[in-house]
Every structure is written in C-alpha cells, then in structure tokens.
C-alpha cells in the first residue's frame, strides 16, 4: 500500500515564515511530527486548539492553521484548562518548553496532570532557556554550563516525564528529534488518550546550550541524542547497567482506567440538571 504523503503546507501559515528558530534548532522537526500525527488522525483543523506559553517552542502555534493561543509565561495550561472545560469536544494541544512548563509553570503542570484533564502536552526539552539567551532551566543537566551557570549548574535537574507520571498523567512518553517517525506515533497516541498526556521531546539548542557545552554542531547534538536513546524495554533489561546519561524513550505510562476531568464534570452536570434550583 502506498504511503499517503502529508501535505504539510495545508496545515501551515506559510505567510508567517521564515520560522523564528535558529539554524540547527530541532523545534521544526517536532512541528512536522505534530502535523503528521494530526494528519493521520484526520482531525478537522477547526477542532484543534493549540495553546502555548512563552519561549522558543511556544512560538509553534503562530505557524499552524488551527485555533491558536499564545499566552503568558508558564500559564498555558491554565488558559488551556478554561478552553477545554468550555469546549470538551476540541482537541486541546499544548506546546511548551522545559522552563515554561516546569519552572514558572510547574504548579499548573502538576495540577493539570493530577486532574487528568484531556490536554495533550508536547514539551520540547532543550535543557535551556533559549529565547532569553541560554539561562539554566530546571532541566539543565547538573554540571552543564548556562549563561546563569557559568561554572556549571550546581542544581539537580528534573526528570520531567517522571514528574508528570508521579502527578497522575494517564499517558507519558519520551522521544528525541533523532527519531522523528517514533515522535509522531507517540504524539498520535497522546492525542488519542482521553486524559492528561505528556510527550517529552528532546530537541537540540546548539545556539545557546550546545556552544556552551562543547557541542556547537547541530548534527553532533542529534547524533548524541541518538547515541543516548534507550527504549523503555531495553532500559528494563539493562536494569542497573543503564548508562547514566541514557534518555529512556517510548511509552512510560499508559493508563486508561483513570477518569478524565471534563468527563467527570459532564456527569456532574447531567446529575444536577433540573435537580438544583
């Protein structure tokens, strides 16, 4: 069977090009993976609401032909919660970064996961605040350099997928831009999950992270992601032999038993309609 080619242009606001992202940035690879997932699911563009916060990744909605909402720093999930509660029928897809979602937006992140509200969070993790010039984020690996960690970060970094899983997300996955085909499959699974989904997507920032950490060449950064990737199944086999710098990729949590928040609210409405004056 011939594979259907994705007409990316039909989803893009081409008049807004060129993209704001630097040469060598992986965000464009993620953008294409999102569009492949949406295309495969055959969702009407009118039924997608893409929400973002502030940062490089959060500029994604400006380039896609959906209902798009570029909000304040860290608060995208709060806005998205309002959209989703009023229009549970819309596919609410949230694009964010490691700083936006887990530093300034950390509270909204864990609580949206706890509620298991049906929002698909695509978190571009580049270990750095790129847009503001390379400051350390909660995901900056301990010891790595940033413009605000000139001697190497002395803070431990978050395991973001682990954080979402612990907070109650019903779907959690990880992938890197070194495996674009796997990315779009995981994004599709996340969008199909009725509940809070996180896909943590590792994407290189050669400009503000790589250059400070002896990896200025984007190709080297992608090769490095590929070298470090270990599937969930393989990681389990390796056990304690799992390399310290491994990025465990694939589906980490998939739990369809947890009730979804807007579903529960709809049931409450049903139960109360006509019952309370």
């Amino acid at each position: 069977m011939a594979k259907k080619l994705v007409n990316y242009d039909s989803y893009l606001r081409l008049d807004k090009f060129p993209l704001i992202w630097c040469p060598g940035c992986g965000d464009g690879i993620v953008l294409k993976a999102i569009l492949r997932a949406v295309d495969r699911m055959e969702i009407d563009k009118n039924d997608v609401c893409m929400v973002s916060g502030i940062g490089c990744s959060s500029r994604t909605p400006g380039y896609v032909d959906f209902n798009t909402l570029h909000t304040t720093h860290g608060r995208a999930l709060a806005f998205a919660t309002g959209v989703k509660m009023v229009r549970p029928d819309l596919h609410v897809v949230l694009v964010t970064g490691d700083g936006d979602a887990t530093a300034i937006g950390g509270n909204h992140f864990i609580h949206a996961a706890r509620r298991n509200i049906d929002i698909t969070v695509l978190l571009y993790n580049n270990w750095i605040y790129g847009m503001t010039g390379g400051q350390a984020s909660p995901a900056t690996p301990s010891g790595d350099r940033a413009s605000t960690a000139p001697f190497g970060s002395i803070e431990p970094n978050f395991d973001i997928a682990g954080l979402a899983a612990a907070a109650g997300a019903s779907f959690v996955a990880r992938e890197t831009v070194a495996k674009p085909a796997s990315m779009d499959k995981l994004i599709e699974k996340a969008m199909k999950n009725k509940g809070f989904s996180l896909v943590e997507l590792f994407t290189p920032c050669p400009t503000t992270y790589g250059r400070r950490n002896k990896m200025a060449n984007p190709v080297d950064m992608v090769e490095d992601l590929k070298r470090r990737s270990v599937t969930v199944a393989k990681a389990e086999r390796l056990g304690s032999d799992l390399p310290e710098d491994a990025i465990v990729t694939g589906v980490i949590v998939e739990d369809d038993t947890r009730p979804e928040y807007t579903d529960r609210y709809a049931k409450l409405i049903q139960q109360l309609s006509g019952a309370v004056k």
Partner: protein
Amino acid sequence: MSTSTKPKVRVMSGNEACAEGALAAGIRFFGGYPITPSSEIAEVLCYRLPAIGGRFIQMEDEIGAMGSIIGASLAGAKSMTATSGPGFSLKQENIGYACMTEVPCVIVNVMRGGPSTGLPTMAAQGDVMQAKWGTHGDHPIITLTPNSVPETYELTVRAFNLSEKYRVPVILLLDEILGHTEEKFVIPESVEIVDRIKPSDPPETYLPYKHTESGVPPMASFGEGYRYHVTGLAHDETGFPTNNPAEIGKLAERLRRKLDDARDDIVDVQRVECDDAEVLVFAYGCTARSANQAVLEARSRGLKAGLLRPRTMWPFPDREIHALAQQVKQIIVPELADGQIAHEVEWAAKGACPVKGFGRIDGQPIRPVQILELIEEASR
C-alpha cells in the same frame, strides 16, 4: 414589564449578590482560588453553575484562575473570577493579557487591608489604583464600585455587559464590609444582557483585531470555524505579532479610543443633594454609605452638603468633579486608603477648590460623624 410573578425578596450578603448577579448576566465559567473575604462568591457558584450547564473550577493558584477565565472566554463562555488583595496582585499579568488580547471577563476584588497579607478580615479601599495600573504598560480599564447589596447585583450584571460590549476585562471592586453585609434585596425579574458582537465576515476575510469605527472588533469563539491567532505580543489586525511601529501605534490608539469614545456610556455617578451644595463629599463603596449618612445629617443641620458617588471609578468621573468644583468651597474625600482617590480628585478639580483627603488604613470603617465634622469645618 411583567408584574404577574411575585418579586423574589431575599436577604443576602454582597458576595452572594455578586454571584447571583453573575448568574443573571449569563456567567458560564468561574475559575477561582480560595481567599478571604471573597470565597463565598466561589462557594455559591460551584453549587449553582453545574446545575445550569456552566463550569466551575478551583484552580491551583490565583494566576491559574485568571488564565482559566481568559481561555474559557475565548471558547465562548462569559467568565469571572473573584479574589482579594494578594490574589489581585498575582492576577495582574494575566489581566494585562486580557487587555491586550481584548478578551471579555470580570474580575471581582473584595478589598481587604494591605499591603501584603495585611488584614484579611477587615475592609479597605487600597486597591483602587492597582485596579487601574496593576498590570504593566499603558492600558485603559473599566472598574465599577457598588455600595450596597442590591447595587452589587446590579453592577455585577453591568460589569459583564460592559466587558462583552467593549471586549475589555472589567474589575468589580467590593470591600470586606460590602461583601459580608447582609441586606434585604428584591431580585429583579429580568435584567438587560449584552453579548459580544460576533463576526459577520466569513472566516477567509475575518480580521480578529480589525480597527473598526467603534474600536471594538467582532469576536469569534475558538472552534467556530474562525481559525485565528491570539497573542499577548503587540499584533496587527490579523492578530499576529508585529514589530512595525505604525501597526503597534494603531493598536495602542484603538485600545485607548474604544473606551475614550464610550466614556459617557461607562462613567456613572450618583449625585445626592449636589444642586446647591457648598461642600462636596466624594466617596465610594462602603465609605459612601457613611458619607451619605453624614450629608443627610449635615442637611438636617442646615449645612449645604452634597455627595458625589462614583459607581464607575475607572474611567474616572473627572468632568463631573470639575463641574462641581466650580460651585463648592471644598471637596472632602474620605477613603479607606491613604489618599489614593483624593489625589485623583485634586487632579480633576484642577485648582477650582481645595480638596481635603481623609484616609483611614487601620482596618476600621470611617464613621458618619467623622465626615460630618469635616463638613462642619468646611462650612464655617
């Protein structure tokens, strides 16, 4: 007007009247966070909203509550949040977002003593400048200031209507006394409701931030087939970010003009005994109740006192003040703040008469006798 049904007479607090007014205005989404002395508003709405197919959510923090109502409004629901001083401070960035993106929503601030945690259970009026300038950057805003339980109901409805009509966040400033005072109240059988203007253009030619003659662009909801972009960045008519100074200027000018042109529709004052007044009191909210009592008492003593009471605080009733400043010997401005509004009144009077501020920030209300003494002093 129908008179067939019995009017509903109730005794309720200002906070409850606020929730009832929101329901009458057509609220369908409330996002909140617990804070004294505003929590009763959330407690009424969490009970009432699901029963009418609306949505309530207690968010994880004040900032999230403000963000949620903006998202809900963009999805088409009339939305509100309620808070008090500390929470109002936290909401400010997202209030600015609603100004910039022209998203209708209502923010209730039941004022308590500040700064900081201050006096959670005591009344104050110290957020009146924060209501105007709390968020960063220049931005016009509407703020309403009721002074009784029935008026809280009425002005909550008006807050929703103005917000929908002009696509602006509207701030309803209550205070702890008003929020917790219970009064008898005849619930109106019906109220006038205003809904946002929807686009008549097809999606292909829709400009979400069109520089219309009124300054208010028609607003499509997400999911209605109008796929447009909303951003807090400076944007052009299409809604997309721009760095072009001409476009930035046009946006700023329209945001200002849409409220400037509607000034007389928005500004709303009550005048008590002002026609022949020689001493004027300018007061709002709970303090206006003491001021009203003081003016009536002064009149009974033969003193020509009057009260000018703003029901709309922002835009400021500067012309109304200036007109009366020509006529009176002095304007007295009692407030539960340290001169925030006295300063504005002085600016509006433009030197036509002296302005005497009387502030109190110890958590206690200003008593009628205190204002009466000031009227007597000014009348001499």
